[in-house]
């Protein structure tokens, strides 16, 4: 549903990657690895059009990204759920309202919010903290809230940037199970992570492809992992 073709990107003239291609098809499950600073977050930002490629083309839901206006990008983001590495929230709203934010932005009437939020809060174990403000959350709770927000509009594509960086192993496996389940429903999932154990655990549940960013290239990591 999102395809990168021959894409190059770099900050301040320093090219991070050159001529890479990637396709997130429905039902596909990808892991993205690479050293710290390799460009994982940057690649994800290209996928949800937070950055536009300096060369190459990105196609999102069969439309060329360059031809989407600002409103087109907003529409696109409602179909792509993103767990950001830095988990930015609106600090004046409760956790519950922050999770509902995509619904509010998409002008879904408040009457239709209820059930989906409660389910998600339960899934990520934040039912008790639903009334807290984001600055009062622990690091791991923030990540889980960010995941819930990414899933609230049941998007077709799920991009997660280090979703388990601050979570213990048990919680990480829970999250992974949730993502695998969504993937089985036909959603495309891309998880950027440096946690090789998580990737190994996933391989037993789903046929995931592992992409590795190295020296500006995107390689498929062999079975050796």
């Amino acid at each position: 549903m999102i395809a990168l073709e021959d894409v190059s990107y770099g900050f301040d003239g320093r090219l991070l990657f050159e001529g890479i291609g990637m396709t997130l098809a429905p039902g596909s499950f990808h892991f993205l690895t690479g050293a710290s600073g390799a460009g994982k977050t940057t690649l994800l930002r290209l996928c949800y059009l937070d950055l536009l490629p300096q060369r190459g083309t990105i196609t999102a839901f069969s439309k060329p990204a360059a031809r989407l206006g600002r409103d087109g990008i907003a529409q696109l983001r409602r179909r792509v759920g993103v767990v950001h590495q830095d988990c930015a929230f609106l600090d004046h709203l409760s956790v519950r309202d922050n999770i509902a934010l995509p619904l509010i932005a998409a002008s879904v009437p408040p009457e239709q919010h209820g059930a989906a939020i409660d389910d998600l809060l339960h899934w990520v174990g934040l039912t008790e903290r639903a009334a807290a403000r984001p600055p009062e959350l622990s690091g791991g709770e923030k990540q889980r809230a960010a995941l819930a927000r990414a899933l609230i509009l049941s998007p077709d594509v799920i991009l997660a940037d280090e979703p388990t960086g601050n979570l213990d192993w048990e919680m990480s496996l829970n999250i992974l199970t949730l993502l695998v389940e969504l993937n089985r429903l036909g959603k495309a999932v891309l998880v950027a992570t440096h946690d090789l154990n998580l990737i190994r655990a996933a391989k037993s549940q789903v046929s995931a492809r592992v992409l590795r960013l190295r020296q500006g290239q995107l390689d498929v990591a062999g079975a050796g992992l």
Partner: protein
Amino acid sequence: MSRLLDLMRGDPVADRVVPPSTRSSALTLIISAIMAFLAVFALALSLATLRLADRWSSALGESATIRLTAPEESEEARLSRILAILSETPGIASFRALTVEEEKSLLTPWLGEAVPLETLPIPRLVELLPADQDYDAEGLRLRLEAEVPGAALDDHAAWRRPLVRSAHRLTVLGFGALGLILVAMAAMVTLASTASLAVNRPALRVLRLVGARDAFIARAFVRRFTLRALTGAALGTLIGLAAIWALPDMEAAGGFLTGLGFGGLSWLSALLIPLIAAIVAFWATRAAAFRALKEIP
């Protein structure tokens, strides 16, 4: 305007995405209030000087007198010649020869009742009132001297005219100050709302990231700031009106200088101040919001 009214109705859900009352958005309210307060005073001052100028110009009058002395020729003939000249002079609203009784009443303060004016060779006087457009006093004086022996133009209103002119100039200054204050208010409200938007940049980014459209985000902010400017300016205007109303009544004490209060219904014009503030805030925040959003992918 209809857009403004539309805005006031608002959408309680969308509204919540804007962080409540940050310090710099409270600033918008305070600035609007203070500047509106000052504007009310400037307006009152301008209106007061305007009334002052009117009153002075009507109270003091602008009449001039022509004096006819030294009986060389028949007095009546010369008098009718003067009247003929006056009727030809442009810029004179009316003129007439004073009767002996009128002249006597004019002289009484100087001479007292006892002087037998009838027996004196007192000069005849012709009073003239210039029209709005001043007449050429110097030209008239020269012509009279040339054509009517013994006739002298006494332009005794001349010293009063600058007074009225001064009052008019004060009015212009007052309205100038009012304009300055409104412009300053516009500048500061614009800056305060821009500052508040800059502060809320992270919030704008979060909203963009969850798929909110620019119009949605802008509307929530614009509504917040327009309401804040309107509230602030309305508050400032009300306090200003109350303060003026509470001032000791100068009219009674002063007599000549009209009080600072608004005459009649002119206080209604003060109600324009919050409206101007709201319109300024609306457009300023709208422009600032779209500008801020354009920098966020």
